[in-house]
C-alpha cells in the first residue's frame, strides 16, 4: 500500500518520549526522571559498567516501527526491586522480563499519545546486554532522548515509518 504519510522523526517526538518516560518511570517504578542536560548525562554515563538494551517492534494499519532503549544494568536491578517490592535482588530472567516490560510500556504509552485513535500490535520485546563501559548503545542514532532516571542514564530512540514508505 502506498502512503502519503510522513515518517515520524526522532527529533519531533522527543517531548512525547520524555512524557512517556516520566509516566512509566514514576508511576510503575517509583523513580524520578530528570530530562538532563548533556553535561549531566555525560557525567552519569561515565559511571556505567554494563548496559542493557531492549527493542520493541510495533505495527499498525498505516505505520510501523521500533522503539529502542538502553539503561545501566545496575539501574535495571533497582527498578526491578521497586517494581515488585523485592527486599533482595531479582533473578536474571526477572530482570530480562522487567526490562522488556519497561520498553513495552514506553512504546505503548508513546504510541497512544502520538496516535490516540489507532491501535498497534507490539512484538515481544528483545532484551540484550551491550559491551561493558561508558559508551551509550544507540547513541549514534539520530536524536535519542537522553534522560536520567534515579540519577542514572537512560537513552530512548524511536523509528516510525509509514507502511510501504521505507
Amino acid at each position, binding site marked *: 500500500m502506498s502512503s502519503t504519510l510522513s515518517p515520524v522523526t526522532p527529533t519531533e517526538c522527543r517531548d512525547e518520549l520524555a512524557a512517556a518516560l516520566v509516566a512509566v518511570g514514576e508511576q510503575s517504578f517509583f523513580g524520578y526522571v530528570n530530562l538532563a542536560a548533556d553535561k549531566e548525562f555525560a557525567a552519569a554515563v561515565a559511571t556505567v559498567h554494563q548496559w542493557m538494551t531492549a527493542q520493541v517492534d510495533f505495527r499498525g494499519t498505516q505505520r510501523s516501527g521500533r522503539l529502542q532503549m538502553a539503561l545501566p544494568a545496575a539501574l535495571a536491578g533497582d527498578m526491578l526491586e521497586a517494581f515488585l517490592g523485592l527486599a533482595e535482588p531479582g533473578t536474571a530472567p526477572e530482570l530480562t522480563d522487567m526490562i522488556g*516490560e519497561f520498553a*513495552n*510500556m514506553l512504546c*505503548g504509552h508513546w*504510541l497512544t499519545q502520538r496516535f490516540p485513535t489507532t491501535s498497534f500490535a*507490539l512484538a515481544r520485546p528483545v532484551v540484550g546486554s551491550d559491551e561493558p563501559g561508558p559508551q551509550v548503545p544507540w547513541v549514534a542514532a539520530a536524536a535519542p532522548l537522553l534522560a536520567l532516571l534515579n540519577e542514572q542514564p537512560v537513552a530512548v530512540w524511536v523509528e516510525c515509518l509509514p507502511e510501504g514508505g521505507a
Partner: protein
Amino acid sequence: MSEVPVPPAQGLTLLIADDSAVMRAMIKRVIGMVDVPIGAILEAGDGKQALALLEQHDVAVLFTDINMPEMTGTELLCEIERRGCWPHLLRVIISTDGSSARREEADALKVRFYLQKPFRPEAMRDVLDALTSHAD
C-alpha cells in the same frame, strides 16, 4: 500456570493473563494492597492458558493483556463471547495500548474496565470495589 492461594480462603478467584511473569507479579502485588477478600489468584501466560483455567475454575474477574503469544487478549475475549459460558465474568484489560480504537473494541467485547499501563494502584482499587458491589 500456577495457583497462589491468598487468605481469606472464602474469597473470590481472580485470573491474570499476561505473557510477562514480572507484570503478573506486579498486578498481584497491587491487588494485595486493596482490602478485598481474594480466595485465589490464577495466572496464565497467554489466552489459551487463560481459557483452560476458566474452564476449570469459578473465576470472578479476568485481567488480561492484549499482546500475548498463542492467543491474544482480544482473541481470548472473543472466544469467551462466542462460548457464552461466563456471563458474570468481570472482564478487565490491562494494556499499554490506550487508543480509542482499542477501547471501542474492548467495549464491544463487554470489557468493564480498561487499565492502561502504567496505572496507579488506585485504579485497581476502583476495579475491585466494583467487584465487591457486583458480588453483593
